């Protein structure tokens, strides 16, 4: 993990560490079956105490994204990416899509026009 030690004061640090791992999984930087970076490496790299890193890793275990293999460390579960995508899709549909949809309606755009605009942007 790349150490960006800028933290957002509104969110607990363990949560921000969790979010960074999730982003790495969605981006495919961490694949299923890969080990998570070790607690002590992350603690030293990010200069946070090991208990904070442990708490972040435990929240990933609770979400079913990561499993603890005794004596070997933490690993990304098979199916973790699908689980994450499912959650993220639902979040988009519940939270972002209604707002975007409202804007589309207000501007009177139709589906063809939207797709054409998207295709033109692509390289």
């Amino acid at each position, binding site marked *: 993990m790349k150490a960006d030690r800028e933290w957002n*004061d*509104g969110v607990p640090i363990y949560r921000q560490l969790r979010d960074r791992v999730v982003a790495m999984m969605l981006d495919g930087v961490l694949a299923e079956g890969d080990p998570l970076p070790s607690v002590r*490496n992350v*603690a*030293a790299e*990010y*200069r946070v*105490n090991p208990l*904070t890193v*442990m708490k972040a890793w435990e929240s990933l275990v609770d979400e079913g994204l990561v499993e603890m293999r005794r004596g070997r460390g933490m690993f990304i579960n098979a199916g973790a990416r699908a689980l994450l995508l499912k959650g993220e899709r639902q979040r988009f549909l519940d939270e972002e899509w209604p707002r975007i949809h409202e804007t589309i309606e207000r501007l009177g755009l139709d589906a063809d026009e939207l797709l054409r605009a998207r295709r033109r942007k692509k390289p």
Partner: protein
Amino acid sequence: MTGVRDETPVIEARGLGKRFGETIALDGIDLRVDAGRIVGLIGPNGAGKTTALNAILGLIPHDGELRVLGQDPWRARDTLMRDVAFIADVAVLPRWIRVSQLLDYVAAVHPRFDRARAETFLERTSIRPRVKVKELSKGMVAQLHLAIVMAIDARLLVLDEPTLGLDIIYRKQLFDALLEDYYERGRTIVLATHNVDEIEHVVTDVIFIDRGRIALQATMDEVESRYREVRVHPSRLTAARELVPIHEREALGQRIMLFENVDADRLATLGEVRRPSVADLFIARVGNGASGGPPR
């Protein structure tokens, strides 16, 4: 964590006091440090940090009750020093000694010193075995000191102002060594400092000390759930003050208030809620007191 949590506290003090003539350096403090914690002992100069550490290390006699790893440090200093390692803020290594001779010496006097480990650490620095301490820069002396302490298999590591006057490369090495080594061996670390920002996320617990008294002792989890800072919306100032903030300051024309034990949802109606920095919390709890001003 790794099952290192022990029932007996590493440090336990009740009514710990120390006076030097008329001056009261420690005014009967109560302390408890459990195994596996990284504790930041934070206070301005002259607050009593070093006196407390000296008592814990058995370097000075004390009043009141004090147990370190279950023993009285003043009476049992020799046995205790097998389990306790210490880096002072003043370099105490003899100037004439060569690095290799120093390692010989520590290996001879300390039963828990792992010489190979110290040598591995030194290989990552520019310190060569033949060099004398007096030829080393201040930062290199600190590195040498750290190499020795990190190679001692201690249960308690005490650091007094470990980064004072040292450059960023050394600071990075120090925190890397502490955090990697710490996790591996589950030891307890007490770090006295007035440089709060640097250790803010590294510590698991904070102890604020001011004019010989404890102003706050809490885990970082407790700090996070107990204290919240709000950037108060101008129209909500009166409502905010009714909730009795423990501190108020101004930044970029906005009032920032610090609350203790006030419901987060309630605070969210006043403005943007954030976690306070340890430095701001320190100023709120200790104030810009007469004993040297706020830590920076």
